[in-house]
């Protein structure tokens, strides 16, 4: 008897609780549903890598084929080339964006001329807000073989013959790396500026009194103080080292086939397999490999952040 009463009481409490929270849960429905569809269902869709893709039948209906897709993939050199390109470019980007980003942030924070400071900060952010399509047009205006300013104005001035830019792979690592820095440097720089601004001025005053020069101050105060944000940003990028910026590698070389040896990355390869070449099996194998290795790397880099500075770990 008492048991029943207790049960009924618990029930009505639960009801009251549910009633109280129902409106709140209802608010969450659109967002939760969106994540379910846009993010969670495709995660399960990764099984497509072990299937023979049939668009009519969809992911569930396509017949299984075991590891065939992976066998085909690793028989070609493609897997090696695209993995190498993706990782090497990302390593360059991480190094350049961190080093130049910190140097520029220190400069901007030290500059006393207010108007200049504003102009430099705006300039750094400006290209970051542009789409890769637009940046692709700008690069084309410079390197177009027929009309580009490089072939038509700059090279003739130096007495050098025109270069077939979009057909010559050797120039593209440099072009891609410079373009990426040109467009992306503002993001990290802004973060470093805000963390430098958070350093207490008294540290520098004390160092000044002790006769420390600028370089010593940077090395002994600025760098250690901003180190947590540097580590976090770097490890976040390392966690994404298997992902390339599709826009950069697709729009800047204008998808020129002659350049694939140096411009093809995991993401452009997957796209081409899906939309153009029809060897979607290999693409889905690459996609699977990217998702899994990427996930392991994110967990690993976060574990490292947790060891070095627990405050900056994401979880």
């Amino acid at each position, binding site marked *: 008897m008492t048991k029943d009463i207790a049960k009924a009481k618990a029930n009505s409490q639960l009801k009251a*609780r549910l009633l109280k929270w129902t*409106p*709140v849960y209802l*608010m969450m429905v*659109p*967002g939760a549903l969106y*994540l379910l569809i*846009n993010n969670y269902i*495709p*995660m*399960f*869709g*990764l099984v*497509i890598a072990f299937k023979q893709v049939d*668009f009519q039948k969809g*992911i569930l209906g396509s017949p299984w084929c075991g590891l065939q897709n992976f066998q085909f993939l690793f028989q070609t050199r493609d897997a090696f080339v695209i993995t190498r390109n993706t990782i090497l470019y990302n390593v360059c980007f991480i190094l350049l964006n961190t080093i130049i980003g910190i140097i*520029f942030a220190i*400069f901007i924070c*030290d*500059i006393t*001329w207010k108007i*200049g400071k504003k*102009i*430099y*900060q705006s*300039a*750094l952010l400006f290209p970051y*807000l*542009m*789409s*890769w*399509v*637009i940046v692709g*047009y*700008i690069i084309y*205006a*410079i390197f*177009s073989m027929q*009309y580009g*300013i490089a072939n*038509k*104005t700059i090279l003739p001035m130096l007495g050098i013959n025109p270069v077939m830019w979009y057909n010559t792979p050797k120039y593209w690592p440099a072009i891609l790396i410079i373009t990426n820095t040109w467009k992306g440097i503002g993001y990290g720089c*802004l*973060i470093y500026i*805000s963390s430098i601004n958070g350093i207490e001025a008294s540290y520098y005053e004390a160092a000044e009194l002790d006769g420390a020069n*600028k370089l010593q101050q940077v090395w002994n105060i600025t760098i250690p103080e901003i180190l947590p*944000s540097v580590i976090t940003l770097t490890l976040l990028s390392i966690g994404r080292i298997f992902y390339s910026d599709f*826009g950069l590698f697709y729009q800047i070389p204008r*998808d020129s*086939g002659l350049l694939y040896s140096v411009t093809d990355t995991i993401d452009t390869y*997957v796209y081409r397999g*899906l*939309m153009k070449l029809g060897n*979607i099996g290999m693409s889905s194998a690459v*996609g*699977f490999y990217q*998702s899994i290795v*990427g996930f392991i790397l*994110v967990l690993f880099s976060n574990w490292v952040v947790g060891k070095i500075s627990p405050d900056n770990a994401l*979880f």
Partner: protein
Amino acid sequence: MALRKKDRVYQIVTNVIMAVWSLFIILPFVLLLMSSITDESVLLTKGYGFIPEKFSLAAYSYIFKSGDKILSAYAHTVLYTVVGTFINVLITALFAYPLSLKNLPGRKVWNFYVFFTMLFSGGLIPSYMMWSTTFHIKDTVFAQIVPTLLMSAMNVLLVRTYFSTSIPDALFEAAQIDGASQLTIFRCIVIPLGKPILVTVGTFSALGYWNDWTNGLYYITKATNLFGIQNLLNRMVSDLQFLSQNTSGLSTDATQMLAQTPTTGVQMAIAFVAILPILILFPFLQKYYSKGISLGAVK
């Protein structure tokens, strides 16, 4: 107090370096603008350049007089940006508010539900197959608005943190005692007090829609009337690429394409028109973008 000599040298050096870098950033945009106002005949002989030898607004008058496709794409981009951003901010705020309540049952689980999508993703192929074979969004308006851009987990967490740290709990309690419903609290307290972060997230979202060309690339294959301006720019590139690879013996298709592809000057003019809103709104965008970036960096 006069600056010491050493400091003055440092100031000059840093200013010069930053000024040179700023020029390095701005000049390519100047090249784009100048090429778009150079007469076509000059472009064809001398190429793109900084100083228009012969000034001409023909490219822009072409866009406004006979560029129906261009204007329509532009209008579509505006539409996608406005509708997409509105829905994005709305569902982000609706999702973030419950997550910010400290005593929400299952709060940890829900936070993880959002967060996990930032760690692991299915990638392009499963998403593409789902959107096109299950939801049939190919060549519909939904293709330009729904995939990827409608809500970002990062933004939800950003807004959640802002709500839980910047709006005092006492306010909610007082409202509840007064008998306000959750919807009223959301409308009358959360939205007005959360305005700074919602504008920031709205800026991110609007820029995402304005600059997006990938959804159109993946999902709009036949209904090119649904193209946004970035898709149009992208399509011109691939058409030209196609033509340059098939120069010998132009098929009727290719000749037709050649006739339809805008001239070199017009292409640059379209690109400039596409960045114009960002240029005009830059001070506003910069303010909220900088705020958002530094908020996101410190989690």
